[in-house]
Protein backbone atom coordinates (compact mmCIF):
# COMPACT_ATOMS: atom_id res chain seq x y z
CA UNK A 1 0.00 0.00 0.00
CA UNK A 2 1.60 3.19 -1.17
CA UNK A 3 -0.27 6.01 0.43
CA UNK A 4 0.96 9.49 0.86
CA UNK A 5 -0.52 12.82 1.78
CA UNK A 6 0.35 16.05 0.00
CA UNK A 7 -0.73 19.44 1.26
CA UNK A 8 0.16 22.50 -0.79
CA UNK A 9 -0.24 26.19 0.05
CA UNK A 10 -3.27 25.70 2.22
CA UNK A 11 -4.91 28.90 3.46
CA UNK A 12 -7.69 28.66 6.01
CA UNK A 13 -9.27 30.53 8.85
CA UNK A 14 -12.39 31.27 10.80
CA UNK A 15 -14.26 34.33 9.56
CA UNK A 16 -11.79 37.18 9.20
CA UNK A 17 -9.08 35.46 11.22
CA UNK A 18 -6.56 33.76 8.97
CA UNK A 19 -5.05 30.83 10.82
CA UNK A 20 -3.15 29.02 8.08
CA UNK A 21 -1.14 31.15 5.67
CA UNK A 22 0.09 28.94 2.86
CA UNK A 23 1.08 25.71 4.55
CA UNK A 24 2.71 22.91 2.54
CA UNK A 25 3.61 19.57 4.05
CA UNK A 26 3.83 16.03 2.79
CA UNK A 27 3.77 12.63 4.42
CA UNK A 28 5.15 9.68 2.46
CA UNK A 29 4.11 6.08 2.85
CA UNK A 30 5.49 4.46 5.99
CA UNK A 31 6.74 7.67 7.55
CA UNK A 32 6.01 9.13 10.95
CA UNK A 33 5.85 12.86 10.51
CA UNK A 34 5.53 15.32 13.35
CA UNK A 35 3.63 18.59 13.19
CA UNK A 36 5.06 20.55 16.07
CA UNK A 37 4.04 23.87 17.47
CA UNK A 38 2.68 25.49 20.56
CA UNK A 39 -1.00 26.28 21.01
CA UNK A 40 -2.61 28.69 18.59
CA UNK A 41 -0.19 28.26 15.71
CA UNK A 42 -2.52 26.30 13.44
CA UNK A 43 -1.77 22.60 14.08
CA UNK A 44 -5.35 21.68 14.81
CA UNK A 45 -6.72 23.84 12.01
CA UNK A 46 -4.47 22.09 9.51
CA UNK A 47 -5.72 18.74 10.74
CA UNK A 48 -9.29 19.94 10.53
CA UNK A 49 -8.63 20.95 6.92
CA UNK A 50 -7.33 17.48 6.11
CA UNK A 51 -10.33 15.84 7.77
CA UNK A 52 -12.89 18.06 6.04
CA UNK A 53 -13.99 19.68 9.29
CA UNK A 54 -12.76 23.07 8.06
CA UNK A 55 -12.71 23.94 4.36
CA UNK A 56 -9.54 25.75 3.21
CA UNK A 57 -10.01 28.92 1.16
CA UNK A 58 -7.03 28.11 -1.07
CA UNK A 59 -4.54 25.33 -1.68
CA UNK A 60 -4.76 21.61 -2.38
CA UNK A 61 -4.92 18.54 -0.16
CA UNK A 62 -4.39 15.29 -2.03
CA UNK A 63 -3.92 11.71 -1.03
CA UNK A 64 -2.03 9.34 -3.35
CA UNK A 65 -3.51 5.91 -3.05
CA UNK A 66 -1.85 3.19 -5.14
CA UNK A 67 -1.15 5.58 -7.97
CA UNK A 68 -4.54 7.28 -7.82
CA UNK A 69 -4.68 10.85 -6.65
CA UNK A 70 -7.74 11.84 -4.61
CA UNK A 71 -8.55 15.48 -3.88
CA UNK A 72 -9.77 15.87 -0.30
CA UNK A 73 -10.82 19.53 -0.46
CA UNK A 74 -14.60 19.86 -0.34
CA UNK A 75 -15.19 16.40 1.10
CA UNK A 76 -17.10 15.76 4.33
CA UNK A 77 -15.33 14.12 7.30
CA UNK A 78 -17.21 10.88 6.56
CA UNK A 79 -15.86 10.84 3.01
CA UNK A 80 -12.31 11.59 4.13
CA UNK A 81 -12.44 8.73 6.64
CA UNK A 82 -13.99 6.46 4.04
CA UNK A 83 -10.96 7.12 1.84
CA UNK A 84 -8.67 5.74 4.55
CA UNK A 85 -7.47 8.79 6.49
CA UNK A 86 -8.40 8.25 10.12
CA UNK A 87 -8.05 10.75 12.95
CA UNK A 88 -7.43 10.18 16.64
CA UNK A 89 -9.03 13.48 17.62
CA UNK A 90 -7.81 15.92 20.21
CA UNK A 91 -9.69 15.34 23.43
CA UNK A 92 -10.31 11.76 22.27
CA UNK A 93 -14.03 12.26 21.48
CA UNK A 94 -15.11 8.81 22.66
CA UNK A 95 -18.76 7.84 23.14
CA UNK A 96 -18.82 7.99 26.95
CA UNK A 97 -22.12 6.12 27.45
CA UNK A 98 -21.14 3.18 25.27
CA UNK A 99 -18.85 0.39 26.38
CA UNK A 100 -15.21 0.04 25.39
CA UNK A 101 -16.12 -2.80 23.05
CA UNK A 102 -18.90 -0.80 21.44
CA UNK A 103 -16.64 2.20 20.92
CA UNK A 104 -14.19 -0.07 19.15
CA UNK A 105 -16.90 -1.63 17.01
CA UNK A 106 -18.00 1.85 15.94
CA UNK A 107 -14.47 2.36 14.67
CA UNK A 108 -15.18 -0.48 12.25
CA UNK A 109 -18.22 1.32 10.84
CA UNK A 110 -16.17 2.23 7.77
CA UNK A 111 -17.23 -0.04 4.93
CA UNK A 112 -13.79 -1.42 4.06
CA UNK A 113 -12.98 -1.99 7.75
CA UNK A 114 -15.95 -4.28 8.40
CA UNK A 115 -14.34 -7.20 6.61
CA UNK A 116 -11.28 -6.99 8.88
CA UNK A 117 -13.11 -6.39 12.14
CA UNK A 118 -12.02 -9.60 13.89
CA UNK A 119 -8.39 -9.24 12.86
CA UNK A 120 -8.29 -5.58 13.88
CA UNK A 121 -9.90 -6.31 17.21
CA UNK A 122 -7.33 -8.96 18.02
CA UNK A 123 -4.61 -6.52 17.01
CA UNK A 124 -5.96 -3.80 19.31
CA UNK A 125 -6.39 -6.13 22.28
CA UNK A 126 -2.88 -7.33 21.68
CA UNK A 127 -1.53 -3.78 21.73
CA UNK A 128 -3.71 -2.64 24.65
CA UNK A 129 -4.55 -5.63 26.88
CA UNK A 130 -6.34 -3.33 29.33
CA UNK A 131 -9.02 -2.69 26.71
CA UNK A 132 -9.75 -6.38 26.53
CA UNK A 133 -10.17 -6.56 30.30
CA UNK A 134 -12.50 -3.57 30.25
CA UNK A 135 -14.50 -4.40 27.15
CA UNK A 136 -17.82 -4.13 28.95
CA UNK A 137 -17.03 -1.03 30.96
CA UNK A 138 -18.42 2.35 29.89
CA UNK A 139 -15.81 4.39 28.03
CA UNK A 140 -16.58 7.48 30.10
CA UNK A 141 -15.65 5.70 33.32
CA UNK A 142 -12.03 5.03 32.33
CA UNK A 143 -8.94 7.04 33.17
CA UNK A 144 -7.43 9.53 30.73
CA UNK A 145 -4.65 7.19 29.67
CA UNK A 146 -7.05 4.32 29.06
CA UNK A 147 -9.34 6.63 27.11
CA UNK A 148 -6.43 7.68 24.90
CA UNK A 149 -5.63 4.01 24.26
CA UNK A 150 -9.26 3.43 23.35
CA UNK A 151 -9.23 6.42 21.01
CA UNK A 152 -6.20 4.97 19.21
CA UNK A 153 -7.78 1.51 19.16
CA UNK A 154 -11.00 2.89 17.71
CA UNK A 155 -8.99 4.56 14.94
CA UNK A 156 -7.07 1.33 14.24
CA UNK A 157 -10.40 -0.49 13.94
CA UNK A 158 -11.06 1.68 10.88
CA UNK A 159 -8.11 0.02 9.03
CA UNK A 160 -6.42 3.36 8.41
CA UNK A 161 -4.09 3.88 5.47
CA UNK A 162 -2.90 7.10 7.06
CA UNK A 163 -3.33 7.65 10.78
CA UNK A 164 -3.49 11.22 12.05
CA UNK A 165 -3.00 11.74 15.76
CA UNK A 166 -3.92 15.14 17.20
CA UNK A 167 -2.26 16.02 20.52
CA UNK A 168 -2.10 12.56 22.09
CA UNK A 169 -0.40 13.99 25.17
CA UNK A 170 -3.14 16.41 26.22
CA UNK A 171 -4.55 15.56 29.62
CA UNK A 172 -2.10 12.75 30.32
CA UNK A 173 0.36 12.43 33.17
CA UNK A 174 3.97 12.98 31.94
CA UNK A 175 4.91 9.34 32.45
CA UNK A 176 1.94 8.23 30.35
CA UNK A 177 2.88 10.62 27.54
CA UNK A 178 6.17 8.80 27.10
CA UNK A 179 4.46 5.42 27.08
CA UNK A 180 1.86 6.61 24.61
CA UNK A 181 4.58 7.81 22.21
CA UNK A 182 6.41 4.50 22.50
CA UNK A 183 3.15 2.68 21.82
CA UNK A 184 2.41 4.74 18.73
CA UNK A 185 5.89 3.95 17.42
CA UNK A 186 5.46 0.24 18.16
CA UNK A 187 2.15 0.11 16.36
CA UNK A 188 3.57 2.00 13.44
CA UNK A 189 6.56 -0.34 13.11
CA UNK A 190 4.48 -3.45 13.62
CA UNK A 191 1.77 -2.66 11.12
CA UNK A 192 3.55 -0.35 8.72
CA UNK A 193 1.27 2.58 9.33
CA UNK A 194 1.77 6.02 7.92
CA UNK A 195 1.44 8.55 10.74
CA UNK A 196 1.03 12.30 10.97
CA UNK A 197 1.15 13.48 14.56
CA UNK A 198 0.41 16.98 15.81
CA UNK A 199 2.00 17.58 19.18
CA UNK A 200 3.20 20.40 21.37
CA UNK A 201 5.35 18.22 23.58
CA UNK A 202 8.53 18.56 21.55
CA UNK A 203 10.75 16.26 23.61
CA UNK A 204 8.40 13.33 23.53
CA UNK A 205 7.36 13.77 19.92
CA UNK A 206 10.92 14.08 18.63
CA UNK A 207 11.69 10.64 20.07
CA UNK A 208 9.46 8.85 17.61
CA UNK A 209 9.17 10.97 14.47
CA UNK A 210 11.22 10.37 11.32
CA UNK A 211 11.03 14.05 10.50
CA UNK A 212 8.93 17.01 11.51
CA UNK A 213 7.54 20.37 10.56
CA UNK A 214 7.50 23.23 13.02
CA UNK A 215 4.50 25.47 12.51
CA UNK A 216 4.60 29.04 13.80
CA UNK A 217 1.90 31.64 13.18
CA UNK A 218 0.22 29.64 10.45
CA UNK A 219 3.38 29.03 8.40
CA UNK A 220 5.88 26.20 8.32
CA UNK A 221 8.85 27.83 10.05
CA UNK A 222 11.22 24.90 9.84
CA UNK A 223 11.38 21.43 8.38
CA UNK A 224 13.62 18.98 10.22
CA UNK A 225 14.77 16.00 8.16
CA UNK A 226 15.66 14.03 11.25
CA UNK A 227 15.11 14.10 14.98
CA UNK A 228 18.76 15.14 15.35
CA UNK A 229 18.40 18.08 13.03
CA UNK A 230 15.31 19.15 14.92
CA UNK A 231 17.00 19.24 18.27
CA UNK A 232 19.92 21.27 16.99
CA UNK A 233 17.86 23.87 15.20
CA UNK A 234 18.06 27.42 16.57
CA UNK A 235 14.37 28.09 16.07
CA UNK A 236 13.37 24.97 17.91
CA UNK A 237 15.77 25.82 20.71
CA UNK A 238 14.26 29.26 20.90
CA UNK A 239 10.69 27.97 21.02
CA UNK A 240 10.98 24.84 23.04
CA UNK A 241 14.26 24.38 24.73
CA UNK A 242 14.36 27.55 26.80
CA UNK A 243 16.57 29.67 24.53
CA UNK A 244 16.31 33.47 24.47
CA UNK A 245 13.02 34.71 23.09
Amino acid at each position, binding site marked *: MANSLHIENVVAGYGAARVLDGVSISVSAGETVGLLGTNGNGKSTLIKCI*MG*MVQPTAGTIRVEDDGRSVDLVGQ*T*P*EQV*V*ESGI*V*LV*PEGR*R*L*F*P*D*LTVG*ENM*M*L*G*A*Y*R*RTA*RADVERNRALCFDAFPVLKERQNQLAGSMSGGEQQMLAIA*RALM*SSPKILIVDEPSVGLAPILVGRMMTKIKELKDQYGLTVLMAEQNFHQASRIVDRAYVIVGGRIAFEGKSAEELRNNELVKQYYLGGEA
Partner: protein
Amino acid sequence: MLGGFYASVALGLTLVFGLLNIVNIAHPAFVVLGSFLVYAANAQWGVDPIAMGVILTPLFFLLGMATYSVYHASFEKRDNESLRGLAFFFGLMFIIEVGLILQYGVDYRLVNAPYIGKVINLGSVTLPLRMLVPFCVALVMALGIFLFLSRTYLGRAIRAVAQDQLALQLVAADPVRIKRIAFGIAIATACVAGALLIVINPVEPAAGRVYIGRIFAIVVLGGMGSVRGTVAAAIVLGIVESVTSTIYSPSWAPAVAFGFLLFALAVRPAGLLRR
Protein backbone atom coordinates in the same frame (compact mmCIF):
# COMPACT_ATOMS: atom_id res chain seq x y z
CA MET B 1 -50.45 -7.38 30.12
CA LEU B 2 -51.25 -3.72 29.46
CA GLY B 3 -47.54 -3.12 29.98
CA GLY B 4 -46.74 -4.96 26.78
CA PHE B 5 -48.75 -2.46 24.80
CA TYR B 6 -47.19 0.45 26.66
CA ALA B 7 -43.80 -0.99 25.83
CA SER B 8 -44.65 -1.18 22.13
CA VAL B 9 -45.58 2.52 22.07
CA ALA B 10 -42.70 3.61 24.31
CA LEU B 11 -40.11 1.73 22.23
CA GLY B 12 -40.35 4.18 19.35
CA LEU B 13 -40.17 7.10 21.73
CA THR B 14 -37.16 5.55 23.45
CA LEU B 15 -35.39 5.65 20.10
CA VAL B 16 -36.40 9.21 19.26
CA PHE B 17 -36.56 10.92 22.65
CA GLY B 18 -34.15 8.74 24.60
CA LEU B 19 -31.46 8.31 21.96
CA LEU B 20 -31.89 11.18 19.52
CA ASN B 21 -33.14 13.78 22.03
CA ILE B 22 -36.03 14.74 19.77
CA VAL B 23 -39.25 15.46 21.69
CA ASN B 24 -41.69 13.79 19.33
CA ILE B 25 -45.01 14.33 21.10
CA ALA B 26 -46.76 13.28 17.91
CA HIS B 27 -45.59 9.69 18.46
CA PRO B 28 -48.93 8.48 19.94
CA ALA B 29 -50.71 10.19 17.03
CA PHE B 30 -48.66 8.03 14.64
CA VAL B 31 -49.75 5.04 16.70
CA VAL B 32 -53.40 5.99 16.26
CA LEU B 33 -52.82 6.58 12.55
CA GLY B 34 -51.51 3.02 12.42
CA SER B 35 -54.63 1.82 14.24
CA PHE B 36 -56.92 3.43 11.72
CA LEU B 37 -55.08 2.10 8.66
CA VAL B 38 -55.22 -1.36 10.22
CA TYR B 39 -58.93 -0.81 10.91
CA ALA B 40 -59.54 0.22 7.31
CA ALA B 41 -57.83 -2.88 5.96
CA ASN B 42 -59.66 -5.08 8.45
CA ALA B 43 -63.08 -3.61 7.69
CA GLN B 44 -62.53 -3.66 3.94
CA TRP B 45 -60.81 -6.98 3.33
CA GLY B 46 -60.79 -8.70 6.70
CA VAL B 47 -56.99 -8.65 6.97
CA ASP B 48 -55.62 -9.72 10.34
CA PRO B 49 -54.87 -6.49 12.27
CA ILE B 50 -51.42 -7.43 13.54
CA ALA B 51 -50.31 -8.83 10.19
CA MET B 52 -51.51 -5.60 8.62
CA GLY B 53 -49.55 -3.60 11.18
CA VAL B 54 -46.40 -5.45 10.18
CA ILE B 55 -47.16 -5.08 6.46
CA LEU B 56 -47.50 -1.33 6.90
CA THR B 57 -44.13 -0.88 8.63
CA PRO B 58 -42.14 -0.05 5.45
CA LEU B 59 -44.67 2.69 4.67
CA PHE B 60 -44.35 4.11 8.18
CA PHE B 61 -40.58 3.81 8.00
CA LEU B 62 -40.60 6.06 4.92
CA LEU B 63 -43.11 8.37 6.60
CA GLY B 64 -40.79 8.64 9.61
CA MET B 65 -37.75 9.36 7.43
CA ALA B 66 -39.70 12.06 5.60
CA THR B 67 -40.87 13.58 8.90
CA TYR B 68 -37.31 13.68 10.18
CA SER B 69 -36.04 15.25 6.96
CA VAL B 70 -38.57 18.06 7.27
CA TYR B 71 -37.79 18.49 10.96
CA HIS B 72 -34.04 18.51 10.28
CA ALA B 73 -34.21 20.98 7.40
CA SER B 74 -36.54 23.41 9.16
CA PHE B 75 -35.40 23.23 12.78
CA GLU B 76 -32.47 21.05 13.74
CA LYS B 77 -30.07 22.48 11.16
CA ARG B 78 -30.77 26.00 12.42
CA ASP B 79 -30.45 25.10 16.09
CA ASN B 80 -34.08 25.86 16.77
CA GLU B 81 -34.86 22.40 17.93
CA SER B 82 -36.23 22.70 21.44
CA LEU B 83 -39.29 24.93 21.44
CA ARG B 84 -40.12 25.27 17.78
CA GLY B 85 -39.44 21.61 17.25
CA LEU B 86 -42.00 20.88 19.94
CA ALA B 87 -44.48 23.15 18.13
CA PHE B 88 -43.74 21.25 14.91
CA PHE B 89 -44.61 17.91 16.46
CA PHE B 90 -47.63 19.40 18.21
CA GLY B 91 -48.86 20.63 14.84
CA LEU B 92 -48.15 17.25 13.29
CA MET B 93 -50.21 15.61 16.01
CA PHE B 94 -53.19 17.87 15.20
CA ILE B 95 -52.84 17.29 11.48
CA ILE B 96 -52.95 13.52 11.98
CA GLU B 97 -55.90 13.77 14.37
CA VAL B 98 -57.93 16.11 12.21
CA GLY B 99 -57.11 14.09 9.11
CA LEU B 100 -58.42 10.95 10.82
CA ILE B 101 -61.57 12.75 12.02
CA LEU B 102 -62.29 14.03 8.52
CA GLN B 103 -61.84 10.55 7.09
CA TYR B 104 -63.43 8.36 9.75
CA GLY B 105 -65.41 10.65 12.08
CA VAL B 106 -65.04 10.75 15.84
CA ASP B 107 -66.55 7.35 16.57
CA TYR B 108 -64.72 4.48 18.19
CA ARG B 109 -63.61 1.85 15.71
CA LEU B 110 -62.72 -1.75 16.32
CA VAL B 111 -61.35 -4.73 14.42
CA ASN B 112 -62.20 -8.40 14.10
CA ALA B 113 -59.73 -11.22 14.44
CA PRO B 114 -60.07 -14.86 15.50
CA TYR B 115 -58.28 -14.29 18.82
CA ILE B 116 -60.40 -11.34 19.90
CA GLY B 117 -62.97 -12.44 22.45
CA LYS B 118 -61.32 -15.78 23.26
CA VAL B 119 -59.79 -16.49 26.63
CA ILE B 120 -57.47 -19.14 28.00
CA ASN B 121 -57.76 -20.37 31.55
CA LEU B 122 -54.68 -20.91 33.63
CA GLY B 123 -56.02 -22.28 36.89
CA SER B 124 -57.95 -19.46 38.48
CA VAL B 125 -56.59 -16.81 36.11
CA THR B 126 -58.34 -16.03 32.86
CA LEU B 127 -56.26 -14.46 30.13
CA PRO B 128 -58.08 -12.81 27.27
CA LEU B 129 -56.21 -13.51 24.05
CA ARG B 130 -56.77 -9.94 22.86
CA MET B 131 -54.36 -8.95 25.66
CA LEU B 132 -51.98 -11.90 25.46
CA VAL B 133 -51.33 -11.73 21.70
CA PRO B 134 -50.35 -8.02 21.72
CA PHE B 135 -48.19 -8.62 24.78
CA CYS B 136 -46.21 -11.30 22.97
CA VAL B 137 -45.94 -9.27 19.79
CA ALA B 138 -44.66 -6.28 21.79
CA LEU B 139 -42.01 -8.41 23.48
CA VAL B 140 -40.83 -9.85 20.17
CA MET B 141 -40.60 -6.33 18.73
CA ALA B 142 -38.68 -5.10 21.77
CA LEU B 143 -36.26 -8.02 21.46
CA GLY B 144 -35.78 -7.23 17.79
CA ILE B 145 -35.01 -3.57 18.49
CA PHE B 146 -32.71 -4.53 21.36
CA LEU B 147 -30.68 -6.89 19.17
CA PHE B 148 -30.62 -4.35 16.37
CA LEU B 149 -29.27 -1.62 18.67
CA SER B 150 -26.65 -3.78 20.33
CA ARG B 151 -25.45 -6.05 17.52
CA THR B 152 -25.43 -4.08 14.27
CA TYR B 153 -23.17 -1.27 13.07
CA LEU B 154 -26.17 0.89 12.33
CA GLY B 155 -27.73 0.19 15.73
CA ARG B 156 -24.56 1.13 17.59
CA ALA B 157 -24.30 4.29 15.52
CA ILE B 158 -27.87 5.19 16.48
CA ARG B 159 -26.95 4.84 20.15
CA ALA B 160 -23.85 6.99 19.64
CA VAL B 161 -25.36 9.76 17.55
CA ALA B 162 -26.58 12.00 20.35
CA GLN B 163 -23.35 11.60 22.32
CA ASP B 164 -20.92 13.04 19.80
CA GLN B 165 -21.87 13.74 16.20
CA LEU B 166 -18.40 14.79 15.14
CA ALA B 167 -16.87 11.61 16.53
CA LEU B 168 -19.44 9.68 14.55
CA GLN B 169 -18.36 11.48 11.38
CA LEU B 170 -14.79 10.47 12.23
CA VAL B 171 -15.76 6.81 12.04
CA ALA B 172 -17.26 7.47 8.59
CA ALA B 173 -20.93 7.61 9.62
CA ASP B 174 -23.21 10.44 8.49
CA PRO B 175 -25.13 11.57 11.61
CA VAL B 176 -28.08 13.01 9.70
CA ARG B 177 -28.55 9.77 7.80
CA ILE B 178 -28.28 7.76 11.02
CA LYS B 179 -30.92 9.91 12.71
CA ARG B 180 -33.20 9.73 9.70
CA ILE B 181 -33.08 5.94 9.75
CA ALA B 182 -33.61 5.84 13.52
CA PHE B 183 -36.64 8.08 13.21
CA GLY B 184 -38.00 5.89 10.42
CA ILE B 185 -37.61 2.78 12.58
CA ALA B 186 -39.32 4.52 15.51
CA ILE B 187 -42.34 5.45 13.40
CA ALA B 188 -42.41 1.92 11.97
CA THR B 189 -42.73 0.56 15.52
CA ALA B 190 -45.59 3.05 16.08
CA CYS B 191 -47.48 1.33 13.28
CA VAL B 192 -47.20 -2.08 14.96
CA ALA B 193 -48.14 -0.47 18.28
CA GLY B 194 -51.20 0.99 16.56
CA ALA B 195 -52.26 -2.47 15.45
CA LEU B 196 -51.84 -3.72 19.02
CA LEU B 197 -53.84 -0.78 20.38
CA ILE B 198 -56.87 -1.48 18.20
CA VAL B 199 -56.75 -5.17 19.08
CA ILE B 200 -56.84 -4.29 22.79
CA ASN B 201 -59.34 -1.41 22.70
CA PRO B 202 -61.63 0.34 20.27
CA VAL B 203 -59.83 3.45 19.02
CA GLU B 204 -60.98 7.01 18.22
CA PRO B 205 -58.84 9.64 16.45
CA ALA B 206 -57.72 11.52 19.58
CA ALA B 207 -56.98 8.32 21.54
CA GLY B 208 -53.26 9.01 21.40
CA ARG B 209 -53.50 11.94 23.78
CA VAL B 210 -54.40 9.72 26.71
CA TYR B 211 -51.06 8.00 26.34
CA ILE B 212 -48.65 10.91 25.78
CA GLY B 213 -47.87 11.49 29.45
CA ARG B 214 -47.67 7.84 30.33
CA ILE B 215 -45.41 6.97 27.42
CA PHE B 216 -42.96 9.78 28.14
CA ALA B 217 -43.00 8.70 31.79
CA ILE B 218 -42.06 5.17 30.75
CA VAL B 219 -39.16 6.37 28.61
CA VAL B 220 -37.80 8.49 31.46
CA LEU B 221 -38.40 5.74 33.97
CA GLY B 222 -36.65 3.26 31.68
CA GLY B 223 -33.49 5.34 31.75
CA MET B 224 -33.74 7.37 28.52
CA GLY B 225 -32.71 5.17 25.66
CA SER B 226 -32.51 1.73 27.23
CA VAL B 227 -34.72 -0.87 25.56
CA ARG B 228 -34.61 -3.22 28.54
CA GLY B 229 -35.42 -0.36 30.89
CA THR B 230 -38.32 0.74 28.72
CA VAL B 231 -39.86 -2.73 28.68
CA ALA B 232 -39.37 -3.12 32.44
CA ALA B 233 -40.84 0.31 33.17
CA ALA B 234 -43.80 -0.31 30.85
CA ILE B 235 -44.63 -3.62 32.50
CA VAL B 236 -44.28 -2.19 36.01
CA LEU B 237 -46.48 0.77 35.12
CA GLY B 238 -49.02 -1.56 33.50
CA ILE B 239 -49.18 -3.68 36.65
CA VAL B 240 -49.47 -0.65 38.93
CA GLU B 241 -52.32 0.72 36.84
CA SER B 242 -54.16 -2.61 36.63
CA VAL B 243 -53.90 -3.23 40.36
CA THR B 244 -55.10 0.28 41.14
CA SER B 245 -58.10 0.08 38.86
CA THR B 246 -59.08 -3.31 40.27
CA ILE B 247 -58.72 -2.38 43.92
CA TYR B 248 -59.88 1.25 43.88
CA SER B 249 -61.35 2.53 40.68
CA PRO B 250 -60.11 2.98 37.11
CA SER B 251 -60.14 6.77 37.45
CA TRP B 252 -57.35 6.53 40.03
CA ALA B 253 -55.05 4.59 37.74
CA PRO B 254 -53.25 7.51 36.00
CA ALA B 255 -52.74 9.35 39.29
CA VAL B 256 -51.18 6.33 40.93
CA ALA B 257 -49.05 5.73 37.86
CA PHE B 258 -47.60 9.21 38.03
CA GLY B 259 -47.16 8.97 41.78
CA PHE B 260 -45.17 5.85 41.08
CA LEU B 261 -43.07 7.69 38.51
CA LEU B 262 -42.25 10.48 40.98
CA PHE B 263 -41.40 7.96 43.65
CA ALA B 264 -39.22 5.91 41.32
CA LEU B 265 -37.35 8.97 40.11
CA ALA B 266 -36.74 10.08 43.67
CA VAL B 267 -35.22 6.71 44.53
CA ARG B 268 -33.46 5.97 41.24
CA PRO B 269 -32.96 9.19 39.30
CA ALA B 270 -31.23 7.43 36.41
CA GLY B 271 -34.16 5.13 35.70
CA LEU B 272 -35.08 1.62 36.80
CA LEU B 273 -32.33 -0.05 34.84
CA ARG B 274 -29.27 2.01 34.16
CA ARG B 275 -27.84 1.93 30.71
